[in-house]
């Protein structure tokens, strides 16, 4: 591998037609791969047309229309759709230097499912992804999207879930054995931007209610990578986006929380792979 820089951007746009904002974001961050969820209200044709003014190679990745996950890319190489299902879509990205699987996820929300159900979903998704990794003989996988779980929750951390941990050095061991079962790690860099007081925002999603335990700021929108990709993942380039510099648009309201009335109740995240 070497010589490629691939810029990703994920945003749960909450059924809003955010064509202008998406085009501005792609231009500002030189996005190569755009992953969206909740796209029911999005004018996709208009978005593609406008994105072509940023990069004429932009095209829809999906074979069939899926509103939960939509992937649009301008990747210099071969992109093959592998699998589409209700909660995730898998693509193989390949050129002379690179071969990796990209998984876009949108897992059920906490309004629909409890923590036990969410772990169960995580188990289902990860076992299907592991089967695809075996099929394509790769352990170079990026999973990005709205997990509807925080980095510390069971579905994210459990070895029966995504097994995505915060410690780079531990993850570099690739796997650990538990009761005779070899379980491969993911590295979850999203830990490092959740609750970081020196950043402009403490998470990607704000929620409050009257229950006894509320986190207020959540980091549901995450990227996790297999340890083999760690050296190609610049941690400082993983960002939660709160505003678009070139147009002055703020994606947060006066309180600094996601502006759900104008845009989305989630903030976009961006990151890159330098492979």
């Amino acid at each position: 591998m070497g010589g490629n820089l691939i810029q990703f951007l994920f945003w749960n746009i909450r059924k809003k037609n955010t064509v202008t904002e998406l085009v501005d974001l792609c231009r500002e961050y030189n996005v190569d791969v755009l992953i969206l969820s909740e796209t029911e209200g999005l004018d996709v044709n208009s978005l593609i047309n406008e994105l072509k003014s940023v990069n004429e190679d932009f095209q829809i990745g999906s074979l069939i229309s899926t509103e939960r996950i939509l992937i649009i890319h301008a990747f210099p190489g071969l992109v093959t759709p592998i699998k589409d299902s209700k909660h995730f879509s898998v693509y193989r990205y390949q050129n002379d230097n690179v071969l990796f699987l990209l998984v876009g996820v949108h897992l059920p929300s906490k309004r629909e499912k409890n923590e036990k159900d969410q772990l169960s979903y995580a188990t289902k998704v990860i076992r299907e992804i592991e089967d695809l990794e075996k099929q394509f003989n790769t352990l170079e996988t990026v999973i990005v999207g709205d997990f509807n779980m925080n980095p510390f929750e069971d579905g994210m951390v459990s070895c029966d879930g995504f097994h995505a941990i915060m410690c780079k050095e531990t993850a570099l061991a690739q796997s650990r054995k538990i009761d005779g079962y070899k379980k491969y790690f993911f590295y979850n860099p999203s830990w490092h931007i959740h609750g970081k007081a020196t950043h402009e925002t403490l998470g990607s999603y704000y929620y409050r209610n009257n229950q006894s335990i509320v986190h207020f700021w959540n980091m549901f929108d995450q990227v996790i990578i297999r340890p083999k990709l760690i050296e190609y993942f610049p941690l400082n380039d993983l960002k939660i986006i709160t505003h678009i510099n070139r147009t002055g648009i703020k994606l947060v309201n006066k309180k600094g929380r996601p502006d759900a009335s104008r845009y989305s109740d989630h903030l976009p995240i961006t990151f890159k792979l330098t492979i």
Partner: protein
Amino acid sequence: MDLWGNLNLKDDNHHVVISILQEQAKLLENKTESVLKVRLETVNLLPKMISDSTYPSLEKQKKPRYPIATNFNIVSPGLDNYTYTLFTVYHNPETEFPVELDTSIEEVAPHTPCDNEREFLNHLHLVLSSEKVTNAIKTIYSKSKTLKAEVRKSDFFF
């Protein structure tokens, strides 16, 4: 001397839900002249460490309601085995019903419970005959066929 009583596995090797899925799979393969295949993919949702856990009671709480998920996957051999999961049935291997049918098709609510065969067939019919499913299959079928034709054309020339 046979001490196994009336154990006859040949007669009992019949799971209603799986048989229905297999029948629908064959029908689709015939309708598409095998351009599309159906693969029933079974995913075990039980945590692997459950029996050996240090905290068995805690782990028991996290045990899923239905330990098995069966995906109804449409596979296109012509499109590099591209797979589209049409729906998932969540079930228990020890009992026929209840099961849960999960799909993104609007005609059926997510995780629809089915208490018996009739309910399952009714909901499955709504899914399989929905406009969204018809359009999805038509799209995958047509792209698979186009690609197959292109490959044949290139075979002819080379």
